[in-house]
């Protein structure tokens, strides 16, 4: 065996554990979801029976699915732009005052909630939002405003969940934006300023293009977190209610599969979610990544 063969063997050996782990724990379950979607589970006997399209019909025919899908869309439309643009604005502000004594304090404060887990984030906000004796209502009353029922109000609940989700996640994007902005050469920005380009022109023509790989990374990962991770907040804060106004597809999946043991229906919801993620990811790579300029 010559050196090249040995190197190929070593390469395969070092990569094998990672590839096998990913195959067994990530790819195989997806394939299994496809199978489970057409099976019916009987908890009493712990057996599966072929169910044909019954699960798909049960999921797509029910009202709950439509509501959860709609809420998922609303969460995305509200949270993705907020999670991308607000941290950008804050990072631009931090860059303007970089070097000042208070800048690290702002940075630490804004990042702090990122360390809180989703369920704990929900639990931290519960007493603040409490409709009877919560802090937020106390503040509203002090300002002479009417109190709100917050997460227990059918019209406000989704916004409250979104607010808590935003609070918990925007810090990570802030860190990423800030790191990208700080690598842009000062001379380039200064030159544009001397040429008479205003603040927004400079952001649009210099910062965004030069930070575009980071911008794209932020966009893609934010879509994933919005779809995936807010379940913990929903569970602690609202349990999907009131009247399923805050439930999303992953939460519906969880309820169907693991509260009601409808594994087939849960798998159908998983497959729909996979399809949505795949389409969104494809759209982002197809239409957005073309505008990204890699250094």
């Amino acid at each position: 065996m010559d050196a090249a063969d040995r190197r190929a063997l070593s390469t395969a050996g070092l990569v094998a554990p990672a590839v096998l782990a990913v195959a067994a724990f990530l790819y195989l379950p997806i394939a299994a979801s496809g199978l489970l979607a057409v099976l019916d589970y009987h908890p009493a006997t712990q057996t599966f029976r072929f169910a044909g399209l019954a699960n798909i019909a049960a999921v797509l025919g029910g009202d709950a699915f439509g509501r959860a899908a709609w809420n998922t869309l609303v969460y995305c439309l509200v949270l993705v732009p907020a999670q991308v643009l607000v941290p950008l604005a804050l990072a631009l502000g931090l860059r303007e005052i970089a070097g000042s004594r208070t800048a690290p304090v702002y940075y630490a404060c804004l990042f702090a909630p990122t360390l809180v887990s989703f369920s704990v984030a929900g639990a931290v906000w519960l007493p603040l939002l409490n409709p009877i004796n919560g802090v937020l209502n106390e503040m509203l009353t002090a300002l002479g405003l009417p109190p709100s029922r917050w997460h227990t109000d059918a019209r406000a609940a989704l916004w409250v969940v979104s607010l808590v989700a935003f609070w918990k996640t925007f810090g990570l994007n802030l860190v990423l934006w800030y790191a990208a902005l700080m690598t842009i050469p000062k001379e380039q920005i200064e030159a544009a300023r001397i040429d008479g380009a205003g603040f927004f022109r400079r952001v649009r023509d210099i910062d965004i293009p030069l930070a575009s790989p980071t911008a794209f990374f932020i966009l893609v990962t934010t879509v994933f977190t919005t779809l995936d991770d807010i379940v913990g907040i929903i569970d602690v804060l609202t349990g999907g209610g009131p009247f399923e106004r805050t439930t999303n597809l992953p939460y519906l999946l969880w309820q169907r599969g693991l509260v009601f043991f409808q594994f087939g229906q849960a798998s159908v919801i998983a497959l729909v979610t996979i399809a949505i993620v795949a389409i969104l990811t494809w759209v982002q790579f197809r239409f957005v990544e073309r505008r990204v300029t890699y250094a």
Partner: protein
Amino acid sequence: MRDASHAGRRAAVARALVHVTLAGASLATVFPLVWMLAAAFTPNDLILARPFRLWPESPTLANFAAAADAYPIWRWLWNSIVAAAAVTAGKLALSLPAAYAFARGRHRWRDAAFGFVIVTMAFPTVMVIVPTYLVVVRLGALDSLPALIVPSIPYIGFYVFFFRQAMKALPSEMFEAASIDGAGFLRQFVDIALPNVAHVVPALAAFAFLGAWNIFLWGQLTLGSVETKTLTVGVALFSDIEGAQSLWGPLMAVNCLAILPVLVAFLLARRSIERAFASR
């Protein structure tokens, strides 16, 4: 001259506005955490009587004691630490060698395998949960920490990607010199690649720890009995008893416990995180 001083004044006003905005945003952002800290050390009846405060009133540890009476929170803390450390170690053990081989190795299938691993970054956890749960049930592993830990490790896409970038950025002369000195491919991993990316490992370890610490949905499923829960999962039990009893103090005490170790991990890894994301 007048122009310059006018521009200077405008810049000063702009800076002041930026400061005011950032200070306002910072205060609003940390307020819930400050409130949590104050409530955790304030007697529960005082919180219920007047919820708004920024500093503990008649400071006490009674909330921690009350929480420990209701649930085994110290056990949960220990479970959380074990689970998060094990997942972090597992992710590093899988991703570092693979990243090295993807960066420096030679194999016909190398790039295809890299794509295969990287694409999993886009897999939402919910889509693998149901089949994995059924397998865990079949194995009789439900209600044990390994059931939480083992399936959480293979989400390594980002780690492999990041470490590969870091290793590709190392000058190839380093590896060639080692090769001339007689170091083989595996020896170069240990002697050259690992020491030279060691400074960014704590950063990724901190993020892996944070991710594992925060596992909620999968923990809800696999850790059914009270004894085996982690803090992140156990917190949900406290929020269930809201309403009549309103144990805000004990709940905030548990939240403090749930945040503290992650805070420590990030403070320890701070330098590494700055280098990991700034040296792109």
